[in-house]
């Protein structure tokens, strides 16, 4: 494979079978390895589409400043693209995110504004909206509401999965901005009768839900409930256990949110076995484990790792 530049090499990631974790030859689980993107996460796809759309619409020109609320991966993808294209990037990031994410962002030249840990990404979104209002020349791409986010998956991730596995029956991914599930979900629903679209939503420690009242909650503008078949909440204990299981049984070194997606995928697989149905279940490996080493997710007992992850944003 040859590309004109790093940016051109986004996507076309491998889909690999999990022969040891799949319950049978009729019920198979497949991993879409999105860590094989230029900056190591699935977010390279939406980040580039959002930038390219903004360029097409004339919102962005070299020298412009991009502002984005992000818990990490989107920021890292934007930072790489911004560096190559001559933009300045400011990320608003919750302070309870891993040190590796901060180091990577700084390496690519991004400026980081920290938002309070309590409230998680809600606070980052709120702060970024305030900053955007006060600095009208800055361009906020806003991954939570930018249609280019889900379009990137509708145009690339979805078609890749269907090309590689025309017999796909289920698609499982983490729920954050909802872009992956909305884009791949819409694409597969149009082409695969009966396909099931399953969300795995991270359930963090209590600090992250530290709102003042329930009406301060946040639902991404991109979210359309009708695209999903169902939605599971996966706690850090299950996510960690599955992340380690994936490495131990199939050799895949993934980030913690992948463990949450795998947990939901294996739940779906068990249900198919029980019902005596055939299934080809694709789940997303959103990133590799590298950025989470300092969180201690891979060391010691699961209880210890879970304790260390308390209050951290791991997806």
């Amino acid at each position, binding site marked *: 494979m040859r590309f004109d530049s790093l940016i051109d090499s986004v996507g076309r990631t491998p889909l690999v079978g999990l022969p040891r974790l799949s319950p049978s030859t009729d019920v198979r689980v497949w991993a879409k390895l999105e860590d094989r993107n230029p900056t190591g996460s699935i977010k390279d796809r939406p980040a580039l589409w959002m930038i390219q759309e903004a360029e097409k619409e004339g919102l962005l020109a070299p020298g412009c400043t991009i502002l984005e*609320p*992000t*818990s990490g991966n*989107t920021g890292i993808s934007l930072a790489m693209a911004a560096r190559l294209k001559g933009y300045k990037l400011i990320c608003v990031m919750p302070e309870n995110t891993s040190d590796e994410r901060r180091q990577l962002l700084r390496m690519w030249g991004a400026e980081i504004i920290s938002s309070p840990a309590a*409230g*998680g*990404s*809600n606070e*980052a*979104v709120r702060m970024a909206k305030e900053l955007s209002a006060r600095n009208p020349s800055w361009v906020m791409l806003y*991954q*939570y509401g930018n249609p280019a986010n889900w379009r990137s998956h509708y145009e690339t991730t979805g078609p890749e999965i269907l090309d590689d596995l025309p017999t796909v029956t289920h698609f499982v991914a*983490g*729920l*954050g*901005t909802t*872009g992956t599930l909305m884009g791949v979900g819409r694409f597969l629903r149009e082409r695969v009768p009966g396909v099931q679209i399953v969300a795995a*939503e*991270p*359930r*963090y420690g*209590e600090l*992250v*839900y*530290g*709102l*003042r*009242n*329930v*009406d*301060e*909650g*946040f*639902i*991404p503008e991109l979210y359309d*409930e009708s695209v*999903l*078949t*169902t*939605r*599971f*909440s*996966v*706690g850090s204990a299950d996510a960690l256990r599955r992340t380690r299981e994936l490495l131990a049984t199939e050799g895949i070194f993934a980030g913690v949110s992948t463990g949450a997606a795998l947990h939901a995928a294996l739940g779906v697989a068990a249900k198919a076995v029980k019902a005596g149905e055939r299934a080809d279940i694709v789940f997303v490996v959103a990133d590799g484990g590298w950025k989470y080493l300092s969180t201690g997710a891979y060391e010691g007992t699961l209880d210890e790792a879970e304790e260390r992850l308390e209050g951290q944003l791991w*997806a």
Partner: protein
Amino acid sequence: MAIEVRIPTILRNYTDGAKAVSAEGKTLEELIGNLESRHPGIKDRLVDQGNLRRFVNVYLNDEDVRFLGGLGTPVTDGDTVTVLPAVAGG
């Protein structure tokens, strides 16, 4: 036997600080009604005009009840119901 209901931090002022309480009912709606009789005021934080509040997520054994049947979702002894506010990811 009863159903365990996990309460998020912001609603624990209704449960004397308890992280989890038990309640009874055959459906989620009945369960919330029963919860209200034990912890007055909590129902209004969860339900608005006969529907779950927009920023409240309720999970039955980790599955979002909006995909199971909403307030009409059947519940049985031994189930776990988790209430969480909707927060951003990404």
